[in-house]
């Protein structure tokens, strides 16, 4: 961990904190209102706001988890610094890809 990675990890954490709260609030709202999947998709499809919201969420989560995993792998496995960095980068890209797929499915009209 160096100052650049540290800042990215803290920065994405700070970004995710309000996003998680909004996300959880939306989950509560949807379940309390008894919204069906079709109702929800009706509101999210074509919405630029929800698209930006979840894209930011996915990007922040992928970066944050990637940096954290890099440290865990470097400290707790015999992968070494380089191996840990490569594995963690691959994992972050996987998360970003899966997240992007979900965002596209929910917001694309």
């Amino acid at each position, binding site marked *: *961990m*160096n*100052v*650049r*990675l*540290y*800042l990215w990890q803290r920065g994405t954490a700070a970004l995710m904190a309000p996003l998680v709260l909004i996300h959880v609030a939306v989950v509560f709202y949807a379940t309390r209102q008894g919204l069906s999947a079709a109702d929800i998709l009706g509101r999210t499809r074509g919405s630029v706001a929800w698209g930006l919201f979840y894209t930011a969420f996915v990007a922040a989560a992928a970066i944050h988890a990637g940096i954290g995993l890099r*440290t865990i792998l*470097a*400290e*707790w496995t015999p992968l070494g*610094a380089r191996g840990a960095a490569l594995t963690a980068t691959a994992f972050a890209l996987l998360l970003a890809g899966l997240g992007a797929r979900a965002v596209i499915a929910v917001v694309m009209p």
Partner: protein
Amino acid sequence: MTEAAAGDLSVSIWRGGEDGSFTTYRVPARASQTVLDVVTHVQRHIDPTLSYRFACRVGMCGSCAMTVNGRPRWTCRTHVSKVAEGGKLEIAPLANLPVIKDLAADMSPFFEKWQAAGGAFAPTLTRADPVEPIRPSEPDRVVADAGIECINCGVCYAGCDTVRWNADYVGPAALNRAWTLMNDRRDGAQRERLAAVAADGGCHACHSHQTCQDFCPQSLSPTGAISGLKRMATRAYLRGELKP
């Protein structure tokens, strides 16, 4: 001097190098006995080939640290009565360092990292210049003074999990030292030192476990010093003064 306390102690002491093992000795228990007294008794009266290190015996030099019943401690100021469990002591060399022989750990990595983290003071004046007055009440001096009493015993280094897991991590004592110098305005290597502690293996590798300050016999707070460095390095990075 002191009358014998009841019974004997059963003392297991690490003998040999990395692949050594514990040997158990019986040592008479005495009042006000320190762990260093116990080790010294074994060397003087039982086995003169036992290797260990000490110098001052009063908690100033930092050379006597060992692992006592699983925890790193300064042995000259550790009373047996405080740490012996059922009259048993297990004494090993400091952890996280190579073993030279018996209770003597190789401190080279500790001091090499201390240097790598910019532990050396870089003077900006010569001896021909007048001494620069610094009042003890100056805010920077107050911060530096809080960490200045480190005796380089290595107890924090031996107790830090991050040191154990991450071979590149310079450790709490080196960073505590760097922090005192970053708050010393007579020092002329501020930029280089900050770059050194902000790199991989520097202050940002610390997980803030606080084991170091829990164990530090001088009651210093390396964790606090490290968070100070993290803040300082982060600010410098955001201002574009650091390129990791």
